[in-house]
C-alpha cells in the first residue's frame, strides 16, 4: 500500500482524526496543541497521527488534500481545516455539532 492509500485509509476509517506534530498529551507545536485541545473539549474520542513519527506521512499529507500545513483535522472523511479553522468552528459551536454527528453514527 503506498502512502497516499495509507493516509486515505486512516481518514476513512476514523470518524474524527487529527494529523499533528506530537500527541494530544505531548504536543510539539502550538498550533497542533490548540487544535487537539479543541477536539478534546468536544468530549468525544478521536484518533491522532503524530506526523513527526512518520516521515512518509509528514512528507505526503500536504499533497493528499492539497493543504500545505499541519495540523489537519478530518471529520467523516473530509478535511475540516487546520488550527485556525478548527478553533473558529469550535468557538461558534459548530465543531461540537460535527463531532457529535459522527459520534452518534459511529
Amino acid at each position, binding site marked *: 500500500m503506498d502512502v497516499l492509500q495509507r493516509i486515505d485509509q486512516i481518514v476513512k476509517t476514523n470518524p474524527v482524526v487529527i494529523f499533528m506534530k506530537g500527541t494530544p498529551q505531548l504536543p510539539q507545536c502550538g*498550533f497542533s496543541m490548540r487544535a487537539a485541545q479543541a477536539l478534546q473539549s468536544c468530549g468525544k474520542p478521536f484518533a491522532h497521527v503524530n506526523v513527526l513519527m512518520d516521515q512518509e506521512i509528514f512528507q505526503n499529507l500536504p499533497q493528499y488534500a*492539497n*493543504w*500545505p*500545513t499541519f495540523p489537519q483535522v478530518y471529520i467523516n472523511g473530509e*478535511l*475540516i*481545516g*487546520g*488550527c*485556525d*479553522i478548527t478553533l*473558529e*468552528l469550535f468557538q461558534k459551536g459548530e465543531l461540537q455539532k460535527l463531532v457529535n454527528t459522527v459520534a452518534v453514527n459511529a
Partner: protein
Amino acid sequence: MTLQQTIETKLADQLQPQHLQVINESANHNVPPGSESHFKVVVVSDDFTDKPLLARHRLVNQILAQELQHTIHALALHTYTAQEWREKHANSPISPPCLGGSKG
C-alpha cells in the same frame, strides 16, 4: 524585498483587501533573531463572500503556494468579509463626523 513584503504585496494585489495585517511572529519561536518563518495574516476582503473558511484558506494558500513550499514555516490565517469584520469590531465605535468647527 523581505518575505513579509512579498506576502503583503501578493495578498494586496490578488485580494484587494479592505484591511490587511501581516505580522512576523517568528520572534516567539525557536529560530534565530531576524527570521521570517512564522507569520500571522489578518485579511478582510469581499473575495471571501459566500466562501466557507476552508475555501478562503485555500485561496490564500494558493496565492502563497511558492512561499509556503519553501520559506514559510507557519501561517496563522484569519479571513473575514467586510461585513464580518464590522460585526466583529462593533465595539470599536466609528469616529464622529467633522462638524466644521475648526473653520470657525
